[in-house]
């Protein structure tokens, strides 16, 4: 269900950062910030939690490792032992390179897939752009529109005070 939001645009990083900090201090709910590049300090200003994606990398990497070791062990020891230069069937040391490669492959691909799923990015998705130019040179702060009229006016005043170039109301699929 679409909800009402306030979209404030800023031409510079400083105004944006200041506005985000002020808004959070005033207990306004920051929906998101839109920027053409990752702005330093926004994570703290917005209070974003650390992502859990690296844990997925670890789990997927370990899966790749176990898969590679068991595949090679199964092939060389259980399924079809082959005498190569009198070496033992289970030559674990010779299995290391392939195990390493598959660890990296599983870890990397799964992390990217998990990121795309979590960020809900997929081919041909229609992007919701709060303002024109957020992928070019505009920074946009999107607040959930406060229910109370008094808070709403306070939010508008705060955004203007922080140097917003424009403040508009819009609808977003939250």
């Amino acid at each position, binding site marked *: 269900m679409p909800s009402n939001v306030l979209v404030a645009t800023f031409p510079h990083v400083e105004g944006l950062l200041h506005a985000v900090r002020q808004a959070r201090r005033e207990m306004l709910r920051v929906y998101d910030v839109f920027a053409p590049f990752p702005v330093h300090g926004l994570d703290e200003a917005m209070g974003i939690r650390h992502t859990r994606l690296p844990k997925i990398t670890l789990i997927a990497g370990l899966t790749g490792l176990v898969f590679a070791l068991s595949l090679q062990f199964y092939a060389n020891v259980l399924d079809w032992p*082959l005498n190569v230069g009198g070496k033992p069937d289970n030559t674990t040391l010779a299995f290391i*390179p392939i195990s390493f490669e598959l660890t*990296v492959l599983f870890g990397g691909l799964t992390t990217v897939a998990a990121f795309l799923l979590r960020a809900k990015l997929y081919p041909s998705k229609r992007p919701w752009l709060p303002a024109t130019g957020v992928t070019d040179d505009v920074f946009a702060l999107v607040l959930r529109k406060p229910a109370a009229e008094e808070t709403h006016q306070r939010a508008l005043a705060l955004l203007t005070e922080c140097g917003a170039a424009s403040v508009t109301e819009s609808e977003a699929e939250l």
Partner: protein
Amino acid sequence: MDRLPDGVTEPRWIAGAPTLAQVTDDIARPMEGRPGKLWYALFAVAVLGLLDLLGMATYLIANGIGVWGLNNSVGWAFDITNFVFWIGIGHAGTLISAILLLFRQKWRTSINRSAEAMTIFAVMCAGLFPLLHMGRPWDAFFIFPYVPNQHGPLWVNFRSPLVWDVFAISTYFTISLVFWYLGLIPDLATLRDRAAGRIKKLVFGLFSLGWNGSHRTWARYEVVSLVLAGLATPLVLSVHSIVSMDFATSLLPGWHATIFPPYFVAGAIYSGFGMVLMLLIITRQSMNLQRYITIRHLDSMAKVLLLTGSLVSYAYATEFFSAWYGGNLYERYHFINRATGPYAFGFYLMVLCNVIAPQLFWWKRIRTSVGALFVVSILVNIGMWFERFIIIVVSLHRAFLPSGWGMFYPTLIDFGILIGSFGLFFTLFLLFIRYMPMIAIWEVKGVVTDQQHGGHGAHGAGDVHATPAALLTQAVNHAE
């Protein structure tokens, strides 16, 4: 030491102070207008090379690999030389995109995109050679372990370095491609939002995955970039180590050496930086991007060439020393033959290009002269090709008993396919700089903002925590 204007401590990697919109315009302009005459001229030559490759490869597949100059003594020659050469080229791209990201080197932002593209194209060229050497490329899938095995219950030999290679190179190609595409997504969104034509809107819309610059996504995106860089760094070191094991695990004099993995990795980075330097000089001249690919970038790359060139020279010396000190008759003969035998010209060419040429970079005047850099970058590529040729052919042609000795004479097909692989590479690269953002727009915007606001405004990917390496880098930059 660089002389910076008073009060400027941070090196400036982008000339002038372009606005964010200007950055978008500057980088997107070559894709929207018509390229210059230089681009068309280069593209025509590259396509001729590609046609040559198609013709030669067709002839080779139709007639078998006997059309190459291979014989009983020398069963590996140009094919594997070219394979190792192209794989090595690719390594600089990963170094720039992953290792320099971890070390928080800001100068990578203008060059990482094209270097990564170069990696992907170089690995494609490399993959071509084992495929052609199989003689029956339609059976290429035999090299993967697959179930059910329709050719009997046999598996690939997991103990063989050649099988390790299959895994290393396919993983390397896949991860490089994914890393490159991930970096492109925000730029594709930028291009989608400024595209005028319907086809462009459709294509960029399809591939930009609905990116809208949400900071919640950016925060995750940066962590994912960092994780991928962390994975790609050991990966790139492993790939050329495994390639070197194709040789080092054999017992052949000249191949059987424990120094091979680090020696090959240093050589790979050396040759790759030579190629990146050459491509960037072509790009900045033909696309007018001097503001983003500055002399300072070229200077930094020349320093990397000096370092890796010296490492490679050290490895050459070590090989000769251990051949003499080890006292193995065959090993010692191999190195005497390397410097005085029938392929000695190749050895001296290699020494000239890989040992002497990079030492010119001790002088700042040479490091900052585009012409000199271009010449040396070509020498580096020639030298590194000959290094692989010497390791492979010279070791094979006179190993052990003289009854097994022979000579390798390349045929026209050998040369044709080598030239053709350059055709494929340059065709892909020129198409890339014509149709894709060859500089990472979003990363440059971070650097530009940083420059204008004294290091507090923004940052490139990976700047999540200050690592000891990053602090060291900063200290070095300030000392300059």
